[in-house]
């Protein structure tokens, strides 16, 4: 199917590979279906592009690449809602944002996705160890000037 995007023009995606968030993301309850766009094979970042809204897209990454201790504990009813069987590992993604001092990720509000059904939800973690602005990469002032 053809997905209209404001950032990348019209993008052809395989409909069977879309991710569905039945409840949307917090603050974006009307964006339910997303395509995961991979800019290049070696990158650690992806674009999560809304199918419904051309201008809604997030940069996301796998939090486990950045912190091996990162884990999400789901409540039983959340696991049931996603259809996750006991012992099944969900795919995790976190939304990335750019700051003056570098790159942060929302580790307190991860996206938890059933790897086969491709259904997901944004979970709010109670664990105070993870924040909405967890630093992934710190950019030095010199590097900042070079890319500005």
């Amino acid at each position, binding site marked *: 199917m053809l997905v209209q995007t404001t950032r990348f023009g019209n993008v052809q995606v395989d409909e069977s590979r879309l991710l569905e968030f039945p409840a949307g993301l917090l603050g974006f309850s009307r964006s339910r279906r997303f395509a995961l766009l991979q800019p290049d094979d070696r990158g650690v970042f992806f674009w999560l592009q809304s199918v419904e809204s051309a201008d809604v897209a997030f940069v996301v990454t796998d939090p486990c690449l950045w912190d091996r201790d990162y884990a999400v504990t789901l409540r039983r009813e959340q696991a049931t809602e996603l259809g996750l069987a006991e012992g099944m590992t969900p*795919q995790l993604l976190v939304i990335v944002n*750019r700051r003056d001092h570098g790159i942060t990720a929302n580790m307190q509000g991860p996206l938890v996705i059933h790897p086969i059904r491709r259904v997901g939800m944004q979970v709010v973690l109670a664990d105070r160890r993870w924040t909405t602005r967890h630093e992934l990469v710190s950019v030095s002032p010199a590097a900042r000037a070079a*890319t500005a």
Partner: protein
Amino acid sequence: MLVLSRQRDERIVIGDEVEVVVVDIRGDKVRLGIVAPSTVSVHRKEIYEAIRRENQDAAGLRGELPRIAASAAGSDAARRLAQQQLDGPRGAHREIA
């Protein structure tokens, strides 16, 4: 706004399916228990708001991914990903990426 007085262990029912119980009161702190169907999400408001704000802020990123990726190159994550690609992708990654 409806204001109700409740004592410890007393309950409030909202609609047919949501119950709020006062579990404990200590000084200026109240512990509440909430019974709700899984389709109703319950969050501390300040955390919910922080995540909603962060989502909205992050949705404002435009064509900055190359720059983001460039500044992440050489990071531990990039090295780990490279290693992972050498090792072969995990099942979950293969499904999604």
